[in-house]
């Protein structure tokens, strides 16, 4: 049984009180602080949280000074950054995921929530703002990346936005996601747009480079202006149940990222079981991940709804324990407008409204945008669209 519920059992009255969560967080953070201090590790957010009363704007002082660099600053979104927790193996042991039941929930969801007409257009535009527009290919070049950046800044034809009554909204993608080599070019191309650059890192996609090299890679990307770092975990740690190693690795990545937000790619297609996915999700969140992300796009199986259900439930559990909201990023496998509506429904049903915004929800995709553009044009004109009618990305 998880520690949280053990606490609940011991003090049922506190179960009902909001007060309890603050106290619990204080308890967890105080112990974390003590340990971090021992290790000479600094984490100002933790200190702020442990006070329990700090105004939200104090939680993210560094991001506030550079809003154009990363995810929306805390002062705007109201979400505190994840300070992490000490590794609690009892939480990992308590993980139960029933695969068949997860599949049934995932299969029933689209039928329970149909989103059509104007609401559908709105949801699709929201999806655009949540896309990490991605190119991660061996043949990427600076020119290719700049073309992608131009598309990120204006992902939907202005005439379509006008027709939908959204001409006055600045619709951009959530980020542009590239290899380290192109971070500089992307930052340059996106100057003035407010769109953050995300770099895949730590020996993406296999994640088997030397640890020091991985940390150096993160630091180099941050130095080049990446505001978000998508790290990959060492799958071996999960497959062998070495949770301490996974935790340590993730904590180091988080430290190396500094102010840049860190998304932990679990490579769920390699982890195979939903139980592994749930356990890896919890460990990465305890180690300070800001987002958990399904896939590199290079595994045999990328984001699926049952995997997503498992990860978002882990996020919900973490929030229940700490009050901290962790973001979710399905990547690969979300290529149709219809799919993204289901993903939104999943976020809304399992986590709530806060997870329908780019600060807590991203989609790693390269071809999804094209399908959304076609759907939007169909909505406006009544005629089915074609890819060539929309600027290339």
């Amino acid at each position, binding site marked *: 049984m998880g520690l949280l519920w053990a606490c609940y059992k011991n003090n049922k009255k506190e179960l009902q009180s909001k007060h309890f969560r603050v106290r619990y967080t204080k308890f967890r953070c105080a112990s974390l602080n003590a340990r971090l201090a021992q290790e000479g590790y600094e984490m100002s957010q933790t200190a702020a949280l442990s006070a329990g009363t700090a105004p939200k704007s104090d939680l993210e002082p560094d991001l506030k000074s550079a809003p154009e660099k990363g995810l929306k600053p805390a002062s705007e979104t109201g979400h505190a950054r994840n300070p992490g927790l000490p590794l609690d193996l009892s939480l990992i042991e308590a993980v139960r995921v029933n695969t068949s039941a997860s599949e049934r929930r995932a299969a029933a969801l689209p*039928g329970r929530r149909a989103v059509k007409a104007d609401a559908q257009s709105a949801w699709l535009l929201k999806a655009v703002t949540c896309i990490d527009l991605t190119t991660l290919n061996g043949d990427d070049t600076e020119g290719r990346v700049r073309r992608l950046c131009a598309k990120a800044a204006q992902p939907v034809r202005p005439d379509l936005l006008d027709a939908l009554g959204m001409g006055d909204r600045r619709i951009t993608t959530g980020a542009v996601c590239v290899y380290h080599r192109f971070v500089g070019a992307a930052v340059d191309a996106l100057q003035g747009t407010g769109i953050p650059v995300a770099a895949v890192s730590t020996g993406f996609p296999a994640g088997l480079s030397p640890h020091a090299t991985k940390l150096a890679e993160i630091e180099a990307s941050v130095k080049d202006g990446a505001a978000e770092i998508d790290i990959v975990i060492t799958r071996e740690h999960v497959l062998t149940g070495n949770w301490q190693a996974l935790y340590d690795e993730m904590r180091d990545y988080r430290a190396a990222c500094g102010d840049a937000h860190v998304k932990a790619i679990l490579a769920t297609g390699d982890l195979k079981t939903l139980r592994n996915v749930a356990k890896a999700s919890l460990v990465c969140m305890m180690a300070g991940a800001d987002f958990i992300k399904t896939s590199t796009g290079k595994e045999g199986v990328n984001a699926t709804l049952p995997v997503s259900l498992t990860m978002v439930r882990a996020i919900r559990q973490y929030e229940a324990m700490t009050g901290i909201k962790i973001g979710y990023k399905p990547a690969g496998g979300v290529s149709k407008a219809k799919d993204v509506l289901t993903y939104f429904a999943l976020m809304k049903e399992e986590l709530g409204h806060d997870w329908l915004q780019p600060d807590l929800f991203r989609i790693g995709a390269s071809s999804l945008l094209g399908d959304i553009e076609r759907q939007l044009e169909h909505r406006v004109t009544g005629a089915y669209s074609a890819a060539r009618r929309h600027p290339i990305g």
Partner: protein
Amino acid sequence: MTVAQYFDSMDYAPSKEDDSAARAWLAAHESRFGHFIGGRFGTPGEGFDTVEPATGKRLASVTQGSGADVDAAVAAARKAQKGWAALPGHERALKLYALARIIQRNARILSVVEALDNGKPIRETRDIDIPLAARHFYHHAGWAQLQDSQFAGYDPVGVIGQVIPWNFPFLMLAWKVAPALALGNTVVLKPAEATPLTALLFAELAQAAGLPEGVLNIVTGDGATGALIAAHDGVDKVAFTGSTEVGRKIREATAGSGKSLTLELGGKSPFIVCEDADLDAAVEGVVDAIWFNQGQVCCAGSRILVQEGVADDFHARLAARLKTLRIGTSLDKTIDMGAVIDPAQRARIAGMVDAAVAAGATLLQAEGALPDAGSFYPPTVLQDVPATCAAATEEIFGPVAVSMTFRTPEEAVQLANHSRYGLAASIWSENVNLALDLAAKVQAGIVWVNCTNVMDAGVGFGGVKESGFGREGGREGCFDYLKPRALAKAPERKPVVPAKAKGFAIEAVDRTAKLFIGGKQARPDGGNARAVIGARGEVLAEVGEGNRKDIRNAVEAATAAASWGSKTQHNRAQILYYMGENLSARAAEFADRIVAQTGAKPDRARAEVAAAVSRLFSYGAWADKYEGVVHMPPMRGLALAVPESIGVAGVICPTEAPLLGFVSTTAPLIATGNRVVAVASEAHPLSATDFYQVLETSDLPAGVLNIVTGSADTLGAELAKHNGVDALWAFGSAALSETVERLSTGNLKRVFTDYGRAWDWMSPEAEGELFLRQATQIKNIWVPYGE
């Protein structure tokens, strides 16, 4: 709302299914329907309206079925039955296949009409009701195709009267009509008063699919029409799904008529959440268990039993889940729950919930707004309901679950089984040992492990205890639409008139047999004895005159011997063989006794003893061979169809064949783990009383077989009324059959009777699977797997 507003709010928008085709169909009939009899629609007559529960608006009016209408429908079905049954299985398979296909082609209009008429969400009719109905016709087309090879020795029952409920109007139609037609029966079906439309639409589709006229007849009407069908002399079988209360009435009305009967009734099914369950999955399970179809599901998981250690966590998650449920009108594709069937049902639900809250229950209820019009009730959980409260024990038939806690798996079983009902159970645990152990121990016809409310045409559905009897779906369900040829041909039983007694003297040494109860010979409670008159008129002996207290004592002894059911099959087999061995050792003595009692020729008497020995060996053989099957429904997983003992069974032994009749009727029950209270042949009880000594030397545990002597009619009635008797086999007069069926309604015990027709006990047909099937009930355990 504009796109920009939706962009900011990220709200759902109502998304309505197009109902124009459904409305056009209603308009084409001017929203008035007559019955469908003999392949054509009659003129609409006096009747009533059917309304949309979601809005309260009238959809159409249908005709109240009169006695004349029912007569006409039964006559049409009768006329068509012979020809339909005479068709080769393949020809019937083609027709059922055509029905399956035409349902699929018209799935959308069927879904919409069903949602409108019932109030349930279009998602459910579209994704569940209609596809499952089509699957039912496909599956049973297969049984028609295979009937000759798979059901040799069985005939169709004939004309089937079917009365179905309003909660799954079309699916229940499919469950009833598909097996009936597949196996060569014809049908008179009455859809529920509140939801007649899809049945009428189906009649039209069946006509288009080329179903011969008279094979399917639809008569609309209220309960009175249903009662006319159930009581109709021309109906050979009644199949009913609905309330336990009406089920009892039908049992009474059909008592002694010789009509075959299956009842699928109410439930208060437990939903057991163990501490090692995936709690999020279990919470979602509750959504499927009690908020599916607004909780108007006979097998709804309406009693949540959660292990104490995780109860707070589970309820916190459940409370959070309640908040995101959406309730709306049936054609809205963005809802989880629709309207309950009508204002009266809504008021009933509200009344039970209010009473529970007044009695101290804690109310967890969805807070979202309900539509203004229509009969809506919010998803509800009642925590800490006093066990004495009606909501805790009675079927609410609405979106209301009651929740209680348990400490140990043993207590979970105790709570789960402490109910008159036994339809379904759902068990949530990630430990396969625990889950299957609970699955074996809960008393239910259907057990879902880590899932709930999943159904398939290939897996029998039906309950135990007061949830009814019979199975729908799968091979086990087919037998409910067939009758054994042997019994149908059996002659009427001739009453045994004892020879006139010559004086009071008992020849030789006085032997007065007592009763055999709990492994011991016991004096009859009344202290009276009755003389057993031999074939030559001499008084052979006296036996106890058993009365209702003796029956009570015998049932108590049988109840206490419950562990017989959990003995290994091998162990039961050994004991039956041993009984055969010990009977064989006394063969001459038993043969002489038969001669003395019945005046049979010695050869014939010896043959009867030999047959009894053989029969004991047969059931010893069957004991470890009467196995279940593994169904393969369309999912990743298994459905284990396990034949289980029924419990305590009463047996009124036939008067003829005093030894073989006694053995033939008790051994199959014992072999399958039941405990028996047998009433020996009234005229010739000494073969059974002599059997005490066989029992005493055969290691049969005390209480497994209890023997009472006395009047078959009196003791049969006592057994029929006893609510601790789970099954009753009665082989006697036609009047006895009527009595026991009529009196069996207290706990809806399973009655197996021959309606006064005498089996030939020496024939091979008086032994084997037919009896074993009657001695057991199938529990289907669904075990989805996957990691």
